[in-house]
């Protein structure tokens, strides 16, 4: 595997992990992390709250416009072994941003990457999928099926 592919793979993996973590509660991430001995790490940037302007597109698919802002918390963490992780999340939970940053650093680590994927990301992803499936099934029950109505009448 060449270096560029490797870099892209790792980026995709980090992004996939962040996508799961952003949907979890700080307490859920912390509880999963407590299951293993973490390497030494420090805050590279203490959690801070700010705003991100959210954009939509005219007509849904056209030129962008500014819809309104959202609160966002962010942090950065460095492992003693050098990996730097970033954490971003909607809301103002600085601890959650810090935990995401820690996980992002761990995901990049040779020694902890697999462990954090199996012990933290995978179970949280499963939990997210279950929640989504539940919501999708409740939504599906409200689907109006015109074909069925026509058949029923005939």
């Amino acid at each position: 595997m060449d270096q560029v592919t490797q870099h892209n793979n790792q980026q995709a993996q980090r992004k996939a992990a962040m996508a799961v973590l952003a949907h979890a509660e700080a307490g859920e991430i912390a509880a999963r992390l407590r299951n293993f001995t973490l390497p030494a790490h420090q805050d590279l940037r203490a959690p801070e709250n700010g705003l991100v302007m959210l954009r939509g597109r005219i007509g849904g698919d056209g030129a962008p416009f500014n819809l309104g802002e959202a609160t966002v918390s962010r942090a950065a963490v460095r492992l003693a072994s050098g990996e730097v992780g970033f954490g971003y999340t909607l809301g103002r939970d600085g601890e959650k941003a810090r935990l995401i940053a820690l996980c992002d650093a761990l995901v990049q680590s040779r020694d902890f990457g697999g462990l954090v994927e199996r012990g933290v990301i995978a179970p949280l992803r499963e939990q997210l999928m279950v929640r989504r499936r539940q919501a999708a099934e409740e939504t599906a029950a409200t689907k109006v099926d015109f074909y069925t109505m026509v058949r029923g009448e005939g």
Partner: protein
Amino acid sequence: MYVAVKGGERAIENAHRLLAHKRRGDQSVAEISLDQISEQLGLAVDRVMSEGSLYDRELAALAIKQARGDLIEAIFLVRAFRATLPRFGTSEPVDTGAMQVQRRVSATFKDIPGGQILGPTFDYTHRLLDPSLAQGVVPQVPSTAEASTAPTPRVTDILGRDGLIESSPEAEDGASVGDLTREPLNFPADRDLRLQNLARGDEGFLLAMGYSTQRGYGRNHPFVGEIRFGEVEVEFLAEEVGFAVPLGAIELTECQMVNQFKGSATEAPCFTRGYGLAFGQSERKTMSMALVDRALRARELGEEVRAPAQDEEFVMSHSDNVQATGFVEHLKLPHYVDFQSELGLLRKLRQEFAEANTPDAMKEAAE
């Protein structure tokens, strides 16, 4: 001109103490929590987020509690809070086509790919007050059905494939996206700025403006192509990270209004569009927004601008309820010196009137 009032400080402090007491209400009644507001008054929270122009359920719930349920006051509080935070940047534009749909209806086609999904709606309820809610009830568990994996493309995208509807305007190369929180409003305003203004505009104002177009003041023959509500993922391109970072999901409502045709000697006639997008489940808001967005395109579409809803300066200058309430409500603050000068002028005019109307003066005038 405002004038300091001696002794005002203590009175103001006491008034605020009394307000806090009134806010709490009867203390033998349980205090309402932010979670309760967020979970059980969710649509009020959605409205405060939309018009406060800040997506944060907890802050909106706090604002509603602090404002004693006065939503415009709550919106004001949220706007003021927003000014205390730094802005990290702007998100990637959200993709409403990839929405995790919880509701999606079309009034134009009954059979749409992905289906019509009613979701949690007041539509088709009988609008009868439900006494059981006064007691507190545990609702039935929602029914479930097998979830479909079929995509739910936007209805306008389907119409667009046949060229029956105009396509959305593309971004011009290098064009910046207007932001009315950063630059003062100038007219004429482009559609990006108009939509930002409408997205944070007062729902009641937009409802009335949209309604006025239906009643003939800038008629544009609307159909609801589609309304959809659900979760979309948000990504933020953080330079330090080097890729678009997922931030989590937000709930949005989108309305695609399909309106009567445009066309020319060189362009085949096609439907035109109005667009609405807002935080949370805000159906009335996005429908009104889409009607007004379409009306405000009058000039661009070569229509005569005659009605208030077509006048962008009128609409955009009066849509913001924080600005509006600020100017209306400032009238109740002390205007003693202003009023004294008005009073002085009026007395002088009355004296002149009296002098002109003494019996002698009258007689003189009659002769």
